[in-house]
């Protein structure tokens, strides 16, 4: 199966890259943009049951994919 993991900086951590992208979008005329937060996206192919995969993916995020000090993560396993 394929799982999707999103990792983003926690709300209270300053995201200078997101801010720079936000400013560039406004410069381009996208004045409706009020905030950009930049993050990371992982597509992970793995074996096992969906329930096991959820727990294992959470461990992967805690141990490596995200730094829990500064980042939050979100795991989803879309229907194939």
């Amino acid at each position, binding site marked *: 199966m394929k799982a999707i993991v999103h990792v983003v*900086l926690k709300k209270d*951590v*300053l995201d*200078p*890259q997101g801010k*720079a992208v936000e400013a560039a979008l406004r410069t381009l005329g996208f004045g409706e943009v009020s905030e950009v937060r930049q993050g*990371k996206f992982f597509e992970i192919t793995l074996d096992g049951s969906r329930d096991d995969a959820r727990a294992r993916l959470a461990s992967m995020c805690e*141990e*490596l*994919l995200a*730094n829990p*000090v*500064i980042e939050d993560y979100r795991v989803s396993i879309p229907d194939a």
Partner: protein
Amino acid sequence: MRTVVVVFPGSNCDRDVAVALARCTGRAPDLVWHGATSLPACGLVVLPGGFSYGDYLRAGAIAAHSPIMRSVHEAAERGTAVLGICNGFQILTETGLLPGALVRNAGLRFVCRPVDLRVDGDTPFLAAFAPGERVRFPVAHMEGNYQADAETMARLEGDGRVALRYVDEAGRATEAANPNGSAAGIAAITSNSRRIFGLMPHPERVIGDELGGSDGRRFFTALADALA
């Protein structure tokens, strides 16, 4: 004192720090590859600067899980001193030996210049300097912006574990003197035991006047005596 420098793929200050240790302690360090599973008996382990694993994922994140890091944790538990410089500091936070995290510089630029630092913490690593003394080391980093949650910050400040702060010429930790947006101008912190030390600046780059300064020579010479 016997010292060890861990070399990761992408380390690029390992030789500089090896030269600094050899000159200042009188004994060349052992260089140990990251894939090794044991460390020689030593009084100090150094994680050098550079771009371990190309800074993939997050600076220091992959190196934090290198085989050698298990031995570094064990050595730290036994009381062996551990020094992380720049990327080494990032590895120490990623592997949980020091709290907090080092994120992208607030100005989004790689900063590479000498900075003034105030000695705030009490640790054998700063044995060369008097409390409140101002020293000058260069920085060279893209992810040197130290961040931690409010509770961790209160603990670091309360326990006197903020070891070095970016300051101006008058010794004040101002926003203008802060090259990367670090919380409270933090440039270095220590563990509760004071035996683990992480700093973003590079003392190994100023070990003689021909290199633009000798505060680094004082740093390494005194820490070798203090840790021995």
